[in-house]
């Protein structure tokens, strides 16, 4: 007879749902601090470097504060789209592939028109980017609705296909003709200003992708709380049978959720390739599509939560880089630290779903 028991709550606790992300951050700080101590660093200094210095250090802050937006922008944009599907029980794991295809199609559209200076060029590329991501997401969507394939596997496998397409166009179709045979496209920021995603206000990190991320968060919030589609998504996720009785069409839901997520991931890719990354290159994708899955769950699949989670994740990335640089921490320790964050978040979910009882159970009535 154990003294501590878990008792399932009839419904997840709202208080704990809101509190667990904070508890997870604190637990990560403690466990991470122990790890840093074992590695021979001062744990308080390490935690301060990761969470405080990127924001307030006089040496790095002015540069890394805007960088937080640059890093968080694509994460938020992708995670917002993914969360719609996750809420409905549609598991798009292949956002990385949709992100790549958005970048390839969008950048390709722009490069095809080089050296155009038309003001319509960039909007056209944005459209092409969204379309590229959308089309890539339609493959698992249609395979699922038509043939009942598993969207987790199909979307994930398509990431590898997209990576190979990226490698191929970097060293072939989209290769910079002035690049002496080296792989990689023209650099948008350096060679093709009309097609580049520049900062809207200088030194703020605020580029069009960040703006798009904020708009996506607002629209997703409205959709989920005010729109019929949002209701259908929530119903399908929480009570699939009830949803069917209520006349929610699974096919429409799958097409909508995967399509939206794909389009947003494609947009993120386009804004990244024309902005911070600057060019299509073989290693252009750096895992945003996968990290966004963590961000979506860290933000509890809620648009506002995702906004905060994206910023937090960006903070750990940039702070982690500073910890490497200033304290000589190995990169693996930083990844471990980020892994802890997700682990603790999932572990803390216990508190949201279960009540903890101390003492012996009462005799069953």
């Amino acid at each position: 007879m154990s003294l501590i028991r878990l008792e399932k709550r009839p419904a997840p606790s709202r208080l704990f749902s809101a509190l667990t992300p904070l508890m997870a951050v604190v637990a990560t700080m403690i466990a991470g601090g122990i790890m840093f101590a074992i590695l021979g660093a001062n744990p308080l200094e390490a935690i301060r470097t990761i969470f405080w210095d990127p924001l307030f250090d006089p040496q790095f802050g002015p540069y890394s504060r805007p960088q937080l937006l640059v890093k968080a922008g694509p994460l938020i944009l992708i995670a917002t789209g993914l969360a719609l599907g996750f809420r409905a029980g549609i598991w798009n794991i292949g956002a990385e592939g949709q992100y790549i295809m958005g970048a390839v199609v969008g950048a390709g559209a722009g490069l095809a028109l080089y050296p155009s200076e038309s003001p319509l060029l960039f909007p056209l590329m944005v459209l092409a980017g969204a379309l590229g991501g959308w089309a890539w997401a339609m493959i698992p969507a249609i395979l699922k609705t038509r043939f009942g394939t598993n969207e987790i596997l199909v979307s994930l496998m398509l990431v590898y296909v997209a990576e190979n397409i990226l490698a191929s166009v970097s060293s072939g179709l989209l290769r910079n003709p002035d690049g002496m045979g080296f792989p990689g496209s023209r650099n948008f920021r350096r060679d093709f200003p009309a097609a580049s995603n520049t900062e809207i206000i200088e030194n703020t990190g605020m580029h069009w992708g960040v703006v798009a991320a904020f708009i996506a968060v607002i629209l997703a919030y409205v959709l989920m709380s005010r729109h019929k589609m949002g209701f259908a998504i929530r119903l399908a996720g929480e009570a699939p049978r009830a949803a069917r009785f209520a006349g929610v069409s699974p096919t429409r839901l799958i097409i909508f959720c995967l399509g939206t997520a794909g389009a947003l991931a494609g947009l993120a890719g386009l804004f990244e390739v024309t902005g911070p990354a600057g060019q299509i290159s073989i290693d252009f994708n750096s895992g945003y599509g996968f990290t966004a899955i963590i961000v979506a769950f860290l933000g509890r699949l809620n648009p506002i939560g995702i906004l905060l989670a994206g910023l937090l994740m960006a903070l750990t990335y940039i702070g982690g880089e500073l910890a490497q640089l200033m304290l000589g921490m190995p990169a693996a320790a930083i990844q471990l630290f980020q892994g802890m964050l997700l682990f603790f978040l999932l572990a803390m979910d216990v508190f949201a779903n279960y009540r903890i009882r101390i003492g012996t159970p009462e005799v069953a009535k």
Partner: protein
Amino acid sequence: MKTVTKLLAGAALAVGLAGMAQAESHGEPVKAGFIYVGPVGDGGWTYEHDQGRLAVEEEFGDMVETVYQENVPEGADAERAITQMALSGADIIFTTSFGYMDPTIAVAEKFPDVKFEHATGYKTADNVSVYSARFYEGRAVQGHIAGNLTESNIIGYIGSFPIPEVIRGINSAYIHAKKVNPDVQFKIVWAYTWFDPAKEADAAKALIEQGADVILQHTDSTAPQAAAQEAGNVYTFGQASDMSEYAPMPRVSSIIDNWAPYYIERVKAVMDGTWESTNTWDGIGPGMVGIGEITDAVPAEVKAEAEALRDAIGAGEYHPFTGPLNKQDGSAWLGEGETADDGTLAGMNFYVEGIEGEIPN
């Protein structure tokens, strides 16, 4: 708004630069930073750059401080990593992978007083030098040994990316394997990675299954060596690093990148105030490319020939790309006794005659 932020940024930069100038005048150590594409423990490319960093520390002791950041992706993150390193007060920053080229140039524009050194690229600026090694010289020695060792006459080659540096290596190895073994055939697999032990092992296994009994690699992990060891009668060569833990079999020799002399020289130049933007492409002669010990698994006379070839290249008596040589499509490239010029080599995007398959694009 724009002007205000510009002014502020300018002021911040000025204050930062003034602070840095002050630090130097107080006789503080020179700070050398290194940006690595892989982990320092990769046993190959990044490992050797880090050995170079440690050699700088050893050489200058308290007069130098080094910092590094590993696993820096070659996309948007590189520019931030380099900027942060410059902000942390680095005086000279080595960016050690091709993909850091545009980010390095972009950061260098913002930090005119910091010196930048970019490995394997081609874009220079007043404060950006480029440096690379003539690995193809080592490939010639490798090809000579490989052509002699193979019994199946199939040599497997794990390519990383289809870029000039890798294509040069394939051509050089092929030319010298063919010289000693006219029946030799190259099977080339593109891994599209510099460092991914799982992918590299798969590539090695696939090549072995296709009959290759010598594996050359242009990727940085020891996974192909392990795969060859498991398969038995397969020979390999260490890449970037000596990989001597796999000697005498399967690893029979290696190409070692030795960045230490160059790094020491460049850091010294910053200390003395004599640093200038340069374009360095050194080979076996100056010691940037080393040939690891040729083991006894190689017959003695082949070993002697290989060493003679190495010495001839090092002394500048022999150029690995000496005509007559044709391109893959049969068109003439180099006439009798003609040697390739550096411009063609730097942008090499064709196979020489005899290699099968196409360069992917």
